[in-house]
């Protein structure tokens, strides 16, 4: 299993989540976060924004679905401008469902 952490534009979150739902991955955890990247924030005229609001999506999928989900997030969250975000993938050993105590997604 893999955990996919996607930092995306907050305004793209609904579009991404609905696309994932359509592809058969309805389970998502999201949280609002603030961050900056290579560009060290955003300069608009004299105003400098050091940290910009982003939406962080956590999605855990089986190994074989990883590529599909990453591609889907990428196509839906892309605008082509700086600040589209990053996607990180990390390994997950096991998942448990609290309701039943069973292993697996």
């Amino acid at each position, binding site marked *: *299993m893999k*955990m996919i952490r996607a930092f995306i534009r*907050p*305004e793209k*979150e*609904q579009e991404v*989540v*609905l696309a994932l*739902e359509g592809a058969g991955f*309805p*389970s*998502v*955890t*999201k*949280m609002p976060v603030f961050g900056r990247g290579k560009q060290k924030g955003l300069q608009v005229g004299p105003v400098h924004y050091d940290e910009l609001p982003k939406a962080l999506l*956590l999605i*855990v999928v089986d190994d074989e679905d990883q590529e599909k989900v990453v591609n889907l997030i990428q196509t839906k969250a892309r605008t082509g401008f700086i600040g589209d975000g990053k996607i990180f993938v*990390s*390994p*997950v*050993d*096991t*998942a*448990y*469902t*609290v*309701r039943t*105590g069973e292993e697996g*997604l």
Partner: protein
Amino acid sequence: MKEIIAIIRRDKVPEIKQALEDIGYPSLTIQSVDGRGKQKGAMCAEMDSEMPESFCTTAKLKPTPSIYALEHTLPKVALYVPKRMLTIVVPDDLVTKIVKAIVRVGQTGKHGDGKIFVMPIGGAIRIRTGEAGGEAIA
């Protein structure tokens, strides 16, 4: 060393904290998150384990779409249920014990009890002293 990420009901946090304390491993990080699972955030019973079914129809407490979805009238919105996310970094031998404790205490038997993920973690450092590895989380 393993990282346990548990996404659980909001009202179970105090009990789970107590249960972890009883095990002797009280360290944890708590975050407020919004989640959706196989039920796509639409289940009323997910909101609160104590809430009667009839309460849902009064629309006082509904799963929350994001602020963006509320501001823009979208044809379809993704719904979320407020949850708490616990992050616990533990030595390998404690993983089963802690997972079992969270399952035991966090269980209500209804949809929306949450998920627990166990992930490998590369290392840990205590910032105060600079200790690394197992000592940092002991």
